[in-house]
């Protein structure tokens, strides 16, 4: 079945396209970060990993959002869907951004040291899982699977736009259902690999869920910012309204609570049972200056967004929502730092490389995003549910 009338979607105009500025940011950031490698290569890898985890989480969170959108047959997000769709295709580039992490494995991951493993019975026990070849195989597989689903679903969406063939909407669900199943497992194991195995003695069954919860909260904030950027520059022909963005704000509020729930449960169960092998991870983050970040996360990542967004009206206040979204993304970056850095420095030691790495990777990520966004319509106007997503008059 085809759409009754195929309409042309609005496109990004040249004067609104921030690509060139982003490219400058990306190049400057990456060049400085590359220089940093020669200054302090250990710091380089740790800063890079934190920035990598940040951009990867946005692509993965978007992939989840698009898949769940199709599975639940939602209509509310149709007019915004091109934004997470374009974010999720960036996973192809995130795969390439992963290469420096692989090159730095020996610096980042204690378990790659043969002598350390030989002296540590626990690491010997984990060696069938924590070894370099298997780590590489796993991660190649994860990126391949994510890229497959992201690319297929993105292409399908563009094809629906071009042909107005509503059958593609049904087809998308056939990708989304197994996709989300594989997503759950792959993201959990990827988060074990990237972040949890930084401290190879520590373990938490919740860690995959924790990584997902924070990624998704940050993804919603990123979508709000891009949507506001496009709307304020009159790019969407009025098809993205404040109401749509407020809906994302409501989800942001909900997932702020969800994040707090998951993060608190993980902390609390370990705190209460007080078993040394588990508490050590939090112990390192409660001393040496990291305790300020720990309490800062409680306040900044939960209490502040929660209190600000509690009132129904504040979700429709676009400037307030913009402020909260920027804040959430900032604190998401701080949390990556807080997860990664205590492994390298036992005392809080921010480094200029932290900033250049996020500027470089974040700039590159956004530059790739806007370049792709510019090549397609900004709103999926031919989606069967598009009409439903628009306000009635």
């Amino acid at each position, binding site marked *: 079945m085809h759409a009754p009338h195929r309409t042309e979607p609005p496109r990004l105009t040249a004067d609104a396209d921030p690509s060139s500025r982003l490219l400058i940011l990306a190049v400057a950031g990456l060049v400085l970060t590359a220089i940093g490698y020669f200054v302090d290569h250990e710091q380089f890898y740790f800063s890079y990993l934190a920035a990598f985890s940040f951009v990867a989480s946005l692509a993965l969170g978007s992939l989840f959002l698009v898949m769940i959108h199709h599975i639940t047959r939602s209509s509310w997000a149709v007019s915004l869907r091109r934004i997470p769709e374009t974010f999720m295709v960036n996973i192809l580039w995130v795969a390439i951004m992963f290469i420096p992490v692989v090159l730095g494995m020996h610096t980042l991951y204690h378990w790659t040291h043969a002598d350390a493993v030989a002296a540590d019975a626990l690491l010997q026990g984990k060696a069938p899982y924590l070894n370099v070849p298997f780590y590489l195989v796993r991660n190649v597989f994860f990126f391949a699977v994510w890229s497959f689903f992201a690319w297929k679903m993105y292409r399908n969406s563009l094809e629906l736009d071009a042909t107005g063939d509503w059958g593609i909407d049904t087809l998308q669900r056939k990708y989304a259902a197994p996709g989300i199943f594989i997503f759950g497992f792959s993201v959990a194991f990827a988060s074990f690999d990237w972040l949890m195995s930084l401290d190879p003695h520590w373990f938490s069954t919740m860690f995959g869920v924790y990584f997902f919860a924070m990624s998704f909260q940050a993804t919603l904030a990123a979508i709000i910012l891009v949507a506001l950027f496009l709307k304020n520059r009159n790019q969407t022909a009025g098809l993205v309204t404040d109401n749509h963005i407020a809906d994302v704000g409501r989800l942001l509020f909900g997932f702020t609570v969800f994040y707090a729930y998951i993060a*608190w449960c993980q*902390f*609390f169960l370990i*705190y*209460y049972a*007080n078993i040394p092998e588990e508490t050590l991870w939090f112990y390192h983050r409660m001393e040496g200056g990291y305790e300020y970040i720990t309490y800062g996360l409680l306040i900044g990542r939960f209490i502040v967004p929660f209190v600000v967004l509690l*009132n*129904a009206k504040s979700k429709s206040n676009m400037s307030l929502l913009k402020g909260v979204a920027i804040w959430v993304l900032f604190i998401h970056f701080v949390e990556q730092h807080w997860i990664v850095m205590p492994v390298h420095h036992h005392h809080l030691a921010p480094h200029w490389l932290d900033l250049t790495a996020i500027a470089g990777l974040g700039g590159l990520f956004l530059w790739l995003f806007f370049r792709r966004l510019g090549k397609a319509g900004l709103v999926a106007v031919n989606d069967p549910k598009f009409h439903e997503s628009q306000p009635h008059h």
Partner: protein
Amino acid sequence: MKAPKPVNTAFGLLAEFRHPGDLIKAAKAVRKAGYTKWDTYSPFPVHGMDDAMGLKPSKLGWIVLGHGMVGLTGALSLLIWTSSIAYPINISGKPFANIPSYIPVVFELTVLLSAFGAVFGMFFLNNMPKHHNKLFNSERFKKVTDDGFFIAIEAEDDLYHETKTAQLLQEAGAVHIEPISAE
């Protein structure tokens, strides 16, 4: 000059409309005419009616917030006072005021009090429970919980006038108009 009101004989006028579409149009007309003591009645909430009637947003949210804050502070004070002031006991070496451990109970009591606020606050704002309402004097009004759509304008309203008000409702598309007795 207002026409002299017939004292205590009528509670007001009840007009029936065919469907939600007509009801919302009529509500706009009644609002435009300037009436204040009136309401629309329907078996389910009609989408967009609050705007059509020009109602201010519900105040319930503030009532719930107040109750929630009482629950939160009350629960925290109870737990801290009983476990670290009234009868401190060392439990598994944790601090007397073991705040992370208090979160479950504090959370539950906050939700409980907020829910009381949401339900009983709604009853309070809606003037419930109220076992007799003059509207129930109309046999036809029983349809309101089935498939009837009504507007009732009370005689108390300053603009109320038996024939003029009836005429307004007629023009707004009413299919049936009747006075409601006050007895």
